[in-house]
């Protein structure tokens, strides 16, 4: 029996979270989700998840700000973060990749099964 991996989804679009839950459930993953960066940051620092899936545009605190705050934390500076967004802004992409995000995935350009496989790969 492999150990259950914890994934934190910080995403304001519920359908995205549900779809991820659909493909990752039953693959040894436990999903926790929240709809804004501020709550997401607090949860991340409390739970220390194995992977954080982070959206770019969100209310209260957006993706780049959340990542920036996360990197200030002793645990958070090395936490695994995958950006999952529909924003295709090169400057912002460069910015979050420079802050150590593992990837910048445009939702509409990836199939849900590919995304599921990618996330599992990142958890190893």
């Amino acid at each position, binding site marked *: 029996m492999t150990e259950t991996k914890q994934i934190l989804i910080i995403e304001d*679009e519920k*359908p*995205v979270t549900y*779809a991820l839950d*659909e*493909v990752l459930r039953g693959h040894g993953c436990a999903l926790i989700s929240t709809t804004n960066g501020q709550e997401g940051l607090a949860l991340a620092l409390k739970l220390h998840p194995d992977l954080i899936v982070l959206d770019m*545009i969100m209310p209260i605190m957006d993706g780049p700000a959340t990542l920036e705050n996360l990197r200030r934390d002793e645990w958070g500076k090395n936490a695994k973060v995958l950006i999952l*967004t*529909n*924003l*295709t*802004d*090169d*400057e912002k992409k460069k910015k979050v990749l420079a802050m150590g995000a593992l990837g910048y995935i*445009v*939702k*509409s*350009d990836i*199939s*849900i*099964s590919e*995304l599921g496989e990618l996330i599992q790969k990142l958890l190893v």
Partner: protein
Amino acid sequence: MLNGLEKIALNTFSDDLAKTIDLGEAIDVVNKYIWELLNYSVAVYSVYNYQDSRFETRVYSKEAVSDKYIAQTKKIVDDFIIENASKMPVGAVSSITKKPAPLLFGIHTDVNNPAEVRSSFVIPVAIGSNFVGALCITSTQNFNFKPDDVDLVSLFLKIAGISIARIQSFLQSVNSSTESLIQSISNGVIMFDNQAKVTLANEAAMRYTGLPKEGYDLKELTKLFTNINLFATIEESLDKSQSIKIPRAQISQFWYEVAVLPVRNYNSEIIGGAIILHDITHVVEVDKAKTEFVSLASHQLRTPLSAIRWYTELLLDGTQGPLLEDQKKFLEVINESNLRMIELVGSLLNASRIELGTFAIDPKDIDLIEISKSLIVELEPYLKEKNLKVVERYDENLRKYFGDPGLLRIIFQNLLSNAVKYSLENNTVNFSIEEGTESNMILIKVHDEGLGIPKKQQGMVFTKLFRADNVKTSVPDGNGLGLYIVKSIVEEVGGKIWLESEEDHGTTFFVHIPKVGMKEKKGSKPLEVTKLR
């Protein structure tokens, strides 16, 4: 009384004069006639030139006299001018000592000629009513000149003076109307001379630059521009003697379209230039807002599309239970249409970045052949669907390239997917990278044996949203943006695209890209590179 010859001379004289506005040239014309009509040894003209504020002296010798003789003649002129100083323009006489070396015309001097000035006369030179200098004519002979001779020369000089005065006052009125025209233009206009001194700036230019109307160094102006080297552009414009436009130049938070143009005199010599500033701050702000709008709009459009994509895929993968055959078929149609919609959003975003001129070129050292091969691999499922064969031909020497990989992918991908899209079953697609038909170019050639483009529509395939009549119904999944985007990119990187096609026999697209590589262009956004489905 004038004799016949003198009358004819006077007639042609006024015609000759009409062609000149320069005092020096006018004296040449005057002397040409006096030389013919009068028997003299040396004529010295000394006239004050307003333009460079100094005296100009011309010496015409009909006889090989000595330098000393010429100096004697000159002294007569100078003395006359000093005597009449009060009639001269203010400060003119004080500059008489700063006279440049006289210009010598006619017979060479002879140092051994002992001849001295035996007879002479002096006549004032005036332009209109302004006394500007004098002419002295001397002879080595005693009593050489008759009163008629003096009258004749006076007459010539008077006519010349009146003629020049008329032309000058005409030019002055032209100048002053040009100046008032410049002042009334709503664009900023700055005129400068060959010494890079600003000679006139209109109201608008003074407002844009905060600099005075005239009299300052051009560099004071050019250093205000933060994003361009305007001085270098000005030098280039004058050097090449052609006007140059800069689409976007910035002074603090304001934006201008700048035109630099050389200004010529009546002889077509460049005497300086003009800078025209057109305020486009508002346009730039609107552009920026539009760019941001398009970027956000495409994010908003993608959000529901990605949800449709994923949930359709979740239904199709069978994990939610088995599907009836029709249900599966319908879901596949939904999925296919949705993927087209996603592609369209990317293409629209690219088209809008192209239109706004805001897309970036970010060249790197890359492997051209590898990029092409990876795209052909991505096409594999579509090739299989129609049982197509791709024949690749590469010139190994062209493998290494300095280019923007994203832009090259867009070019190759569009041309290749078009070739596949418009091929018939069992066709062959040829793809090659080879030496260009121009020596400084690389040629990318994509050939298919498919539907072709009707002759009369070939000129339109690169226009936005155009789709040829023969494919509109048979191949519905095209948005008419691909070739428009490809052409825009190819031209922006200094290349060229063209095609050969025959309906029902296929199409060949030819793309030239510069061998030296692409030049970096910092834009706000790179273009979207979508992965083939």
